[in-house]
């Protein structure tokens, strides 16, 4: 508050004249500023607005809009304003490829980003490669780093599942137990966990003593629970979708108030689900992986606070306008961070239009360390240009009083593994 505010006096004549002069100068310079901005950079967003990924899509869109506002408020990218065009892919791989086509050939976007579900990425990446358009996925699947895709597909905003699992296994073995039973969905997402965790826990001197694959068509799990060996020290669970509530409820009924193994789960199971949901009381005291802590932690810094405010998420991880609208907090930061990687890539490569798409990809491949910042609020990252995959810190949280509180954070180095591919040697 200024003195004038307090006294009620208006500005002095000198100030008014100075201000008018500055205004005239600014208005004279305006056309040049507008010209310098040029045509907007158009980004295509392949959005899971409907279908099985809709809960994620809702928050991915919201995060993208928030990041877009921050970017444009700060002057856009390379002095150009930025637009995002959202197209719904129905979380369907066939439609996903059509959406990539539509964004590029009809909307004329410069590049495409945003898909989460692995099958959509697998179905769409070939089309992105054919169109020679950068395709930046926010999926956490191992499909990029495994070498299954192409030079135009990159994952610079979120660590892949192999790295997530490898980085947490030492803590699980040291703190929860070494005899592990795994319960996972009987399809590719579950197999990634089965294969990578089994190898990772073995490297820690532990052992997976039972692997219980649950078919995706199951709606009740009571017949699988007796298969959990009595000597199990840790029950590792990664059920996904609406069935997870039934799974947890039935698990609670199975063990009752008697002794039970330590439970370790992936938050994927409960993204967008309120821990206060009846039936989830059984999870009190159990542990979860989180890429990004849903509940604002006591040591949250300025970047975390600013990110939360920009996206509109309260301290419990729900929408500020609706406490029942719980965010997909452990995944959606990837959209935010990917947009800022796009910004950095465009500015580093001098990208001016579609003819420079190759230069843009090469600029991304040259990226390495990304420090914790407003652009990377989840944490510091290290990008591997050869595998097109980024690596970041991971969190292990415990349910305490119905809230996920961080008990351990891994380092980037904990999650590194040998390269399976060198995309930089592939033709564009």
């Amino acid at each position: 508050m200024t003195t004038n505010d307090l006294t009620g006096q208006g500005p002095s004549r000198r100030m008014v004249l100075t201000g008018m002069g500055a205004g005239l100068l600014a208005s004279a310079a305006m056309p040049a500023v507008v010209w310098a901005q040029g045509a907007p950079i158009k980004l295509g967003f392949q959005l899971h607005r409907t279908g099985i990924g809709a809960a994620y899509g809702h928050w991915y869109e919201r995060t993208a809009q928030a990041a877009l506002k921050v970017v444009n408020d700060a002057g856009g990218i390379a002095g150009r304003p930025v637009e995002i065009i959202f197209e719904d892919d129905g979380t369907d791989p066939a439609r996903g490829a059509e959406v990539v086509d539509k964004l590029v050939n009809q909307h004329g976007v410069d590049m495409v980003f945003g898909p989460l579900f692995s099958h959509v990425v697998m179905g769409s990446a070939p089309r992105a490669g054919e169109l020679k358009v950068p395709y930046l996925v926010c999926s956490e699947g191992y499909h990029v780093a495994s070498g299954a895709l192409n030079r135009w597909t990159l994952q610079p905003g979120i660590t892949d599942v192999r790295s997530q699992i490898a980085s947490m296994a030492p803590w699980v073995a040291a703190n929860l137990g070494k005899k592990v039973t795994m319960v996972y969905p009987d399809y590719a997402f579950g197999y990634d966990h089965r294969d990578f965790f089994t190898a990772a826990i073995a490297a820690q001197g532990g052992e997976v003593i039972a692997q219980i694959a649950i078919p995706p068509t199951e709606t009740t799990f009571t017949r699988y629970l007796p298969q959990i060996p009595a000597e199990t020290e840790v029950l590792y669970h990664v059920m996904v979708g609406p069935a997870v509530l039934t799974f947890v409820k039935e698990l609670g009924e199975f063990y009752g108030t008697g002794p039970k193994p330590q439970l370790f789960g992936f938050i994927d199971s409960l993204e967008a689900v309120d821990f206060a949901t009846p039936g989830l009381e059984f999870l009190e005291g159990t542990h979860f992986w989180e890429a990004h802590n849903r509940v604002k932690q006591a040591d949250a810094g300025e970047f975390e606070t600013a990110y939360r405010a920009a996206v509109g998420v309260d301290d419990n991880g729900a929408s500020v306008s609706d406490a029942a609208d719980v965010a997909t907090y452990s995944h959606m930061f990837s959209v935010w961070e990917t947009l800022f990687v796009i910004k950095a890539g465009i500015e580093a490569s001098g990208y001016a239009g579609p003819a420079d798409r190759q230069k843009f990809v090469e600029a991304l491949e040259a990226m390495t360390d990304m420090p914790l910042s407003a652009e990377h609020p989840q944490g510091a990252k290290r990008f591997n240009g050869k595998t097109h995959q980024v690596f970041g810190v991971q969190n292990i949280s415990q349910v305490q009083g119905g809230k996920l509180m961080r008990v351990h954070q891994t380092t980037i180095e904990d999650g590194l593994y040998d390269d399976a591919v060198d995309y930089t040697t592939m033709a564009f």
Partner: protein
Amino acid sequence: MSVTGKIWALHLGVLVMLAVAQAVLPAYHANNLARIMVLAVFAMGYNIAFGYTGLLSLGHALFFGFGMYGMGLAVWQVEWTFFPAVVLGLLAGGASAAAVGMLALRTAGVSFMIVTLMFAQAGYLTVLYFNQYTGGDQGFAVEAFARQVFGYDLAQDTPRAVAAFVLFAVALVLNLVLVRSRFGRVMAAMRENEERSRMLGYDVFHVKLRVMVISGLYAGAAGAAFGVLFGYVGANFATVQYSILPMLYVLMGGAGVVLGPLLGAVVMFYLIDIASGLTSAHLLVVGVALVVLVLFAPRGLLGMVRERWLPWLP
């Protein structure tokens, strides 16, 4: 002009229009047209079974999936090139239809629908179960070497459009010849009055089995073509959705009309494409369109045209 002359002039005219459209449409719509033509081949196969013979199947995703995975696994697992892989896909579609037909044709009506649906679901779950060989729900990209034909790269828009057009043209001409042949009239007889056909001495089971195999070959060809032309093979294509899609195309375009599947595929494709840009409830729009269709044109768009203006439409 004789009726035969009119029929060939119309169908060849449609092919010319498609070829011209491929050449002049903007890239996005030209690519959509390539997709539509491949899906229309799938629906043509469905039309042969349902529209002409009265076999209401809910298992065609299995035949489409067999075609796609027959081609895709031959490329991925044993590195077959384009022609042998696509032929394997075609034959896999026909063989799967023969196997399902042998069992499912012992039933009729609603039971036939349920049995074919069960087989298709079993096929889908089999793809998931053998994840390490099939890529499971994630699927896999078709490798570049299998997308080369006569020195052309099917990952490029023009060779892909030509390939889709050739497939569609061959399928359309064969479909036309089939339904105007003596066997085509037997198919229609099965649909109109199975008991009378039996009384006249036709072996109903064998006629229907042959129809299932032809329908499966169409589905297999379309599945293999879709995989190789668009570079991806995934379990999603074996879900029940891909049994319902050809049925919707046929119902929309006109069951028992050769051009019905093409028109139905065009209308449904763009209905979804446009509606999904306007609302997240785009499936509701599709549903409303189907209700309107059932109320005002229960025989489909071309069925209505045949009823009112072109009685010679095959």
